């Protein structure tokens, strides 16, 4: 079986997943208990049946369900769900997403970066010094870190930073760069200036640490195990016997080989960030995709929720696909024979 056929098969298998996901989204909102039309009623219209009917007509909710479903799926395919219903009504769904996406990307970028830059080195450090006191400290830290739920950690961090003056003797908010408030969206319009970049970074830093915390712990644990495993491989012993210097041994033989199991871990955690960002953005009041999605879902803004779900589903399926492909690249034994 060729690699191309393997990939083609994986792609074909993802179609029903996408279909099922989007259909469920539609069914939950359209057939579920949330009635978006009621959100359109303004003061004095609450008890007015005519206004309610008009709202339903306007949203197309009075169509037969199947017709609505096919229309909706059709426009979803072409990424054209038109205007939102309730949030920023009248805005194009796609334009609205583009308005909110940068803040989430900024948050995601830092949380992945922090997780990778802290988790991986720490894991390698612990692996190289296995069963020493520093390994125990690092390992314990990794487990505890990983065990803390995002939303709880976020609240704690906010509480601590909010009273940093009393606890640490310095005020986080005015440290280095003055922030207008502890929580809120980063100002991405001044990213090209040094000060603007630092301010935007400082603003998302607590949220990024929280969002990256779970993956950080994961990467640490897996990095440690990988290093430990590679360290005990025969070829490491051989290299050492050959007289390879300790430095070359670590960086060339151990480090590179230990990275292999980490690559799929990092890619698969990318979509954890999407799910996690909903909570973290709510806690830190960052107006990103997560918060937008949460608001759209609870109010039943079908076009917006649908498009976001569609994007999320495509993203997750895409990442999975990429991961499958990466496996076959990194380790040719994977997938091909069995598939």
């Amino acid at each position, binding site marked *: 079986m060729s690699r191309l056929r393997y990939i083609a098969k994986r792609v074909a298998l993802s179609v029903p997943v996408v279909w099922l996901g989007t259909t469920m989204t539609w069914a939950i909102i359209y057939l579920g*208990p*949330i*009635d*978006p*039309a*009621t*959100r*359109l*009623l*303004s*003061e*004095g*219209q*609450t*008890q*007015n*049946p*005519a*206004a*309610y*009917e*008009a*709202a339903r*007509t*306007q949203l197309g909710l*009075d169509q037969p369900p199947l017709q609505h479903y096919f229309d909706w799926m059709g426009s979803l395919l072409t990424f054209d769900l038109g*205007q939102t219903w309730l*949030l*920023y*009504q*009248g*805005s*194009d769904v796609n*334009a*609205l997403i583009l*308005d*909110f996406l940068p803040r989430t990307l900024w948050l995601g970028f830092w949380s992945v970066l922090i997780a990778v830059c802290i988790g991986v080195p720490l894991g390698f450090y612990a692996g190289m010094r296995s069963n020493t006191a520093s390994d125990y400290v690092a390992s314990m830290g990794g487990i505890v870190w990983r065990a803390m739920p995002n*939303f709880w950690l*976020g*609240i*704690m961090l*906010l*509480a601590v930073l*909010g*009273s940093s003056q009393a606890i640490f003797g310095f005020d986080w*908010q*005015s440290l280095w760069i003055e922030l*207008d*408030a*502890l*929580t809120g969206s980063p100002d991405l319009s001044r990213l090209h200036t040094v000060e603007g970049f630092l301010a935007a970074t400082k603003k998302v830093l607590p949220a990024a640490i929280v969002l990256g915390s779970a993956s950080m712990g994961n990467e640490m644990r897996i990095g440690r195990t990988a290093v430990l495993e590679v360290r005990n491989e025969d070829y490491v012993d051989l290299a050492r016997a050959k007289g390879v210097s300790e430095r070359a041994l670590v960086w060339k033989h151990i480090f590179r080989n230990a990275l292999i199991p980490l690559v799929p871990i990092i890619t698969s955690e990318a979509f954890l960030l999407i799910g996690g960002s909903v*909570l973290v953005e709510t*806690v830190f*009041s960052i*107006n990103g995709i997560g*918060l937008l999605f*949460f*608001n759209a879902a*609870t*109010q039943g803004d079908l076009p917006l929720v649908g498009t976001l779900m569609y994007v999320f589903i495509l993203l997750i399926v895409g990442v999975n696909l990429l991961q499958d492909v990466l496996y076959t690249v990194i380790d040719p034994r994977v997938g091909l024979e069995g598939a």
Partner: protein
Amino acid sequence: MDVMPEDTTRRGFLTVAGAGAATALAGCSSGPSEESTATDEPTDSTDDGGDESAEPSDASDDSTSSVSNTLQMMSPGPVQTLDPINAKGSGVGFNQYGSSLLDFPNGEYPPEGAVIEDYSMSDDGLTYTFQLKQGVSFHDGTELTAEDVAYSFRRLAGSENSRNRDDIIGETMTIDHEKDASRTEPADEETLTDYVPGSLAVDAVDDYTFEFTLASPFQYTLSQIAGGTFAILPAGSVGDVDGYDGEYEYNEFFSTAGDGPAYAGLGPFEVDEWNKGDALRLTAFDDYYGEGPELDGVTITVVESANTRFSRFQNGNADLMQEDISTAAFNPDSVSIEETSGSRSVGTYTFDDGTTVNYGEIPALRTEYIVFNCLEVPLPVRRAFAYAMNQDEIAKNVYKGTGQPAYHMTPPAAYPTFEDGVGSAETYDRHAENGYQSVTEFGADGYPYGYGETLLDEARSVMEQAGYGENDRYEITATTIAGDSAYGSVFTRLQSKLRSAYIDMSIEESQFGTIISRAINGDMEVFGLGDGMEYPGPQNFLRFLWGNNPGSQFTRWGAEGSFYTEEYRQTAMDAWENKYQPDDSTQQSRNEAFQTVEEMNWASVQELPTVNPVAQRFWQEYVDVEMHGVMGNQTFDQVTKGE
């Protein structure tokens, strides 16, 4: 939400962890109630606790706002749209960047001319003619002409983007037009979307004369067109209505597509920057038609949590705070009222640290009430509820004084009057207290179920007469709005009292949107609701209570198989049909009709009012602003900010 299901636990946790703790709860529970139509006004302390994002942070905010001459405001929810016909109600910013033909000076009723010199009404009360002021500029520099007004009205009636068609071609004020039932489904029924494009009876007679003709006379026409949905835009700005090509794409004019928003209105401030979800920045418009503006700009920042808004204001990071004041943070004992004019009270508020700010309050055109489904709940049970309820105690303890006890569906400011020199609020109070100007036997002695008191003996006896007793109890389920603990407390208070009147009530929660659709389907027994008025006319609420069309009303009063009294219904219908509806009805006869319907609602207890909430405003010492009137819509063209 599973984390801390009980209020007490939650509160205890908060004191330990700081208010930041509550943020996650908000994420799970209250969510985006920015502008739910009914009731998210006063909630008691425990709920507001669940809404917060990190007060500690704001406590250390350094003030940056008082430096510039820009007024810093906050809004509980994001500015959703700049399009007047698409907006739901009108927000704080609306009166700053937009203007209609008339406005409410300082938010006071009645409306006065804004961009008009004069107007006249034809003898039959149908045709209104307006003389526009000359030389009035839009933000884009073009001059206001009658064609712009016609365009704005046509968009409201006919644009696919309009969500306020009901305001112009609906049931209340109706500008003459044609409808073709076959245009949209259902094909055999005329709905708002069946409007025939171009058929609206509006006319730009010449450049400065605008005219429209109503289908039938309507008393509050001028109030209606003074509302935010009738804001005027330059003709042809967007092409979403027949006969106009549109200079801009919709999202370019009203939203942030391209170089947008290209929005141009008539208000004293123009839209500078709209950062969705975060802030709307307005700057002074130099060619404003009126006097002012004195400020350089107005910035409206979104701060979702009521408690955070409160602490931001306290720290001087906002110049003015109104709308949805945190009941948890608000301490009624810190208010000192210095001056009362009409229903408006102005004074000061002193924070715990001793700083003093200005404070004003005015009863809003709003009523909170509970609705009975008369298909399910018999009259004696409804009356037992009324006897058991003590509005006075609810206003004091649940609403912490930010609401006044309500005995009528019509709020005091809109209550009909009968004698010169006796105003709306006074008529309201006296009618409830001792039956002043009552028109039926039932209202002769005032509110029959205990004015400011609980009458449990009466509740018991009305139930006993109906055959209920210790061994034959009545079971009922009450539905409250999720995230609004005020209703929760109202029902909890009733629950224990009703137990001794042989009524076992269980309480369930439901989302606001779900409550409305369940009310439409009639599958609840009793539930809490609240509603506001767009103009001070009792018909806003009373049109749903006089027994007409019972099949589609929330109360189902008078529907086949419902528990209703034919005599009461006939009295209400006679009054409405003979005294309110006829074209030759007078203000006096209409007021009698309103009074009759109110008293028949007392008799039938379809809806049981609880409180009329009060609108509050806080502003810093250095801000010079008048307390707004009952309409709330105030333009800040005369507001100044000193040191």
